[in-house]
């Protein structure tokens, strides 16, 4: 890989051949706003907000798609650039329903950030959303195409990243939009609810239904952990507010092994955590029925019975089933207990099942 030197906003910076202007700027903490760019997919150069001025080029170039060249001179903040960005942003603001008051994306919306950065209080064009209405029949994903800026991130995520080939661009009426083929709902399409489209949507057009009205982005604490379903071990973020997991999100930046991709189980299958049927108290069976008892009583009783059986029938009369769903620490402690306290190697788990 060849090192290339170029000039961005008067600074000499270096990048590798094949990198784009946007990537090199980002690595050097030079801010260029983007909407349609996403690191997991091929650049589309469609939204026109990442435009920059390159000395010698006649028109502005999309920095997310333009490879760097030796001695290139780039200006990311010239008047021409700002004017183009403003125009693109105002067109987007006026062509949709961007009422932030009750939007789930409020606080992490790239369009909102852009309007703020450019100081746009009111677009100069009249606001006329297409009027698609909200699709919220399924319990996982809410689609509000009046908030869609047709950046195409979801289309590329569905086709290039998850390769589920559900989403595409289409026209409904005179408006360009995105969605499953033939204008069907997610529910009636081949969608497998992986939610990749939701995780890359830069605005509030695609959001998680579970989290609706449950907490603002700045109110939730995102706790990074590992998915509790399959062996891929995807990195997920539990979004917590008031001691409750309100939704699950993911982030490309969390890296291996999943780079922000999840499946339906990891993204939408963790509502069992607060399910009302969770066991909350130790139970002991007496006279054929379960009774809630104190921890002391349950622990004392269990220890006493295990000791009796071990001492009377021998260590090998006890069998222990550990779990492929519990942590390494849980499994370690239970096999140690089995071997060191019960005195048997009768310990196994459902790896084989």
């Amino acid at each position, binding site marked *: 890989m060849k090192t290339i030197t170029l000039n961005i906003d008067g600074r000499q910076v270096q990048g590798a051949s094949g990198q784009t202007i946007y990537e090199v700027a980002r690595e050097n903490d030079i801010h260029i706003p983007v909407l349609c760019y996403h690191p997991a997919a091929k650049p589309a150069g469609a939204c026109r907000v990442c435009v920059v001025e390159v000395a010698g080029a006649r028109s502005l170039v999309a920095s997310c798609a333009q490879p760097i060249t030796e001695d290139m001179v780039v200006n990311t903040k010239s008047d021409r650039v700002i004017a183009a960005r403003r125009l693109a942003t105002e067109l987007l603001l006026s062509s949709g329903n961007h009422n932030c008051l009750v939007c789930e994306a409020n606080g992490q919306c790239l369009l909102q950030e852009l309007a703020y950065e450019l100081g746009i209080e009111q677009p100069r064009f009249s606001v006329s959303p297409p009027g698609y209405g909200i699709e919220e029949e*399924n*319990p996982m994903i809410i689609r509000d195409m009046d908030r869609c800026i047709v950046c195409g991130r979801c289309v590329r995520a569905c086709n290039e*990243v998850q390769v589920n080939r559900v989403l595409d661009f289409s026209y409904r009426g005179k408006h360009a939009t995105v969605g499953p083929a033939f204008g069907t709902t997610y529910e009636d399409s081949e969608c*497998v609810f*992986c939610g990749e489209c939701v995780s890359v949507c830069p605005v509030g057009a695609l959001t998680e239904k*579970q989290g609706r009205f449950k907490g603002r982005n700045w109110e939730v604490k995102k706790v990074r*952990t*590992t998915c*509790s*379903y*399959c*062996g891929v*071990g995807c990195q997920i973020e*539990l979004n917590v507010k008031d*001691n409750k*997991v309100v939704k699950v999100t993911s982030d490309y930046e969390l890296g291996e*092994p999943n780079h922000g991709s999840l499946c*339906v*189980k990891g993204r939408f*299958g963790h*509502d069992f*955590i607060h*399910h009302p*049927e*969770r*066991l*909350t108290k130790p139970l002991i*069976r007496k006279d054929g029925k379960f009774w809630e008892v104190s*921890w002391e009583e349950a*622990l004392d*009783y269990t220890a006493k019975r*295990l*000791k009796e*059986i071990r001492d009377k029938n021998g260590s*090998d009369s*006890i*069998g222990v*089933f550990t*779990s*492929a*769903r*519990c942590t*390494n*620490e*849980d*499994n*370690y*402690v*239970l*096999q*140690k207990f089995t071997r*060191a*306290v019960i*005195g*048997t*190697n*009768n310990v*196994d788990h*459902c790896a*084989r099942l």
Partner: protein
Amino acid sequence: MTNSISEAAESAVFLLTGTNTTENHPVIAAKLKQAVNKGAKLILVDPRNIEIAKFAALHLRQRPGTDVAWINGMMNVIIEEGLYERDYVEGRTEGFEKMKEVVKKYTPEFVEKISGIPAADLIEAARLYASSKPGAIYYAMGITQHTTGTDNVMSLANLAMLTGNIGVLGGGVNPLRGQNNVQGACDMGALPNVFPGYQRITDEAIRAKFTEAWKPVMPLSEKVGLTIVEMTNAAHEGKLKALYFMGENPMVSDPDTTHVREALKKAAFIVCQDIFMNETTELADVVFPAASFAEKDGTFTNTERRVQRVRKAVGPIGESRPDWKIIADIAERMGYPMQYRSANDIFEEIRKVTPSYAGISYDRIEKTGIQWPCPNEEHQGTRFLHKDKFVRGLGLFNAIEFREAAELPDDEYPLLLTTGRILYQYHTGTMSRRSEGLNFRSTGPFIEMNPRDARDYGVSDDEVVLISSRRGTVEVRAWVTDRVNRGTIFMPFHYAEAAANVLTSTFLDPIGKIPEYKVSAIKIEKKKKKATG
């Protein structure tokens, strides 16, 4: 996995078998599909017409239970046509000649008779796999859940060695683990024959080491313990008096449910730790409320050996406690203090006794997990195994003959049942069936039945039928589809109300001790119409 998930981008060819990847490991499936879009070739060997078949250059549909035959067949072609890696075989392996002798008779025509795979397809698959490098093999329970499961796995290893695909980036033999922490539970010694880190309990020096580290109240036993299915059998015979379950539900997950229920009823004392009541806790004497993964700290080890953090996000639900804490409190009452203050305390102890984990610490995996073996703090972890040299020295070819499954269809039970999972459910459903989204997309219990079988039995789509094996009968809705071949019935096992494992047999692989979930003989009957009037 010998190799890593991210290496899918490096492979030129994939051989996928016995894994319904898009449903069971969807994010790995996404990486495979991405690679296919970029030009990698996919060979699928699976009896069912599953989603990923759309991405396959070749799809071979074998009769379930004939894996050794087609794998030997591929090797036969590769050897006959001189497509194998001579240098690799000579320099890094042993046992080649014996294996070659055995596979000699597995000509494509012979294999076609056993497996139903057309000879020409097998030849094409063999050529494609052997001539594109590197080639990665992925498999899951469709390979292991057979009485020949160990043979199947060893055969795949033979195939990979023959083509020089073990110990290279983008190659390997990669089992996809079903449940999130199967790898970790095995690493931690939750197995009847090994301590943590696969150190043998039969080795006196190892026992001495653990005696020193643990100071046990009972002498560490040198006797290999019982596996899950053996424990159930022993309980059935009255030999096991007490059973302790941590987050397991054998009433749904284990073969032959009726037998399991009887076994559990015979035990004098049953303890369960779980997050929900289930079919197994219902039979317990004591049930402890356990914390879920969201309420505790710890680590899981994923299918590529990556040790990753689990972090406490919310406080305990009710009075629930982490599993390790419950066990430690019982141990203390039995005269063995386990004074861990945190999960990290336990992990620090794990590192001390488990050489492959020695270099891993919570600090080091704060951002990104590390893949074992990681012998010391300077070590970056291991992306793929057997680089330059096999762990045992030379890679060993095993000469393996094909054996039929234990229970084959016959006149009385003419159909072949194979079980598995679906995308929207997980294992016994304890978690997934309590999720609104997952249940919205999943339809409840069903079987897949070929249209020709449906015609033969007069079954229409969506009709509820009775299916029986020698062990029991269940009622279930039929989905008429060519996802399965004629003669084969597929059924997911997540559902207690129509439990596939009422039907499955307890025949085990003699070495792996894995039940043969992928082949049982069954029959189908129409439900009798209720008399009207």
